[in-house]
């Protein structure tokens, strides 16, 4: 990895990122979006709009909310609110990712462009892989990884759309469950300290209960804050114990 790796140009790191994407993570998000494409077909959206939703929205849960809302005729404001509340995660995801990949001279426009490509797979894999990439090449590596994921996913959205008629419900359900399993397993794999385990465990188990207690779509925010604060408390406790 060292020797040749240090000689790599930005283009080289871009393609290395893309290569790493298509040799695994891109298919995780791709298979999930095949199922989303199938749903787009079922609610009567055109194939091009289904693919555009992957390229422009690039958030599985938000796409699911939007397509389901089309089918059930939800009021526009309610759709936008539901999407916003479900996508709040992007704020801490972007805040925690950018300091890891940007250089001292990365422009604001580049950072916003980079933020558009953040999704669960891209986030998990970049947080895990970027530390092994030379600092000044991380943005190129990230864009390669993200492009590999989003282009594969856009193609798979179309495949899922076209295959919707043949796709049995069991398979469509199985496809939708790939990202949840992947997220849990990849997060356990990447867990570095007690904090990560607490965030994961609390977030997973609290969400269903908070959902029944807190209305108005605010439940995810409440779950995130409780689990996030508990996780940080675990970090402080672990440090205090080490110091003692």
């Amino acid at each position, binding site marked *: 990895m060292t020797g040749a790796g240090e000689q790599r140009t930005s283009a080289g790191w871009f393609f290395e990122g893309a290569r790493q994407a298509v040799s695994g993570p891109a298919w995780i998000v791709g298979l999930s979006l095949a199922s989303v494409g199938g*749903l787009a077909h079922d609610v009567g959206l055109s194939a091009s709009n289904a693919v555009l939703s992957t390229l422009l929205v690039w958030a599985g849960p938000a796409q699911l909310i939007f397509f389901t809302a089309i089918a059930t005729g939800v009021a526009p404001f309610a759709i936008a609110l539901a999407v916003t509340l479900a996508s709040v995660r992007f704020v801490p995801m972007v805040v925690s990712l950018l300091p890891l990949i940007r250089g001292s001279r990365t422009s604001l426009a580049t950072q916003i462009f980079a933020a558009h490509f953040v999704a669960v797979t891209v986030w998990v894999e970049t947080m895990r892989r970027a530390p092994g990439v030379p600092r000044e090449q991380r943005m190129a590596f990230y864009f390669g990884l993200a492009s590999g994921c989003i282009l594969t996913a856009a193609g798979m959205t179309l495949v899922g759309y076209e295959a919707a008629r043949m796709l049995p419900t069991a398979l469509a359900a199985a496809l*939708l469950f790939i990202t949840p399993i992947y997220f849990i397993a*990849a997060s356990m794999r990447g867990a570095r300290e007690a904090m990560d385990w607490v965030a994961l465990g*609390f977030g997973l188990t609290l*969400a269903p209960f908070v959902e029944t207690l807190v209305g108005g779509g605010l*439940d995810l925010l409440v779950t995130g804050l409780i689990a996030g604060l508990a996780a940080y408390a675990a970090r402080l406790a672990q440090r205090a114990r080490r110091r003692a």
Partner: protein
Amino acid sequence: MSVGWLVDPAVAPLAAMLILAAAPNLILRVVGVLLSRGIDEQSEALAFVRGLALALLAGVVGKLIANPPGALAATTTTGRIGAILIAVAAFFLARRSIFAALLAGEATLIASLALR
């Protein structure tokens, strides 16, 4: 003159998608970019935000298991929880393999549908 048709998925699906789904996402991402300014890779602030992001993502998955969208609604709660537990078990049994977790979890979910 009303501009309501712009956000009516039945009339203008692409415009509605851009305004109701793409725009809120973009705004939240830009908020993230602005809030990230001045945050250092090694800082405690970053550690806290990383935990928050992980907690929110876990929350999304927890909600998905409790209230499944789309085709996932055809599965049972027991099937979904069972699939996650088996996936976690497989992860550790196969020396922390993500692939093993995916395989075992998916097999469990499909089996739960077949046995229903």
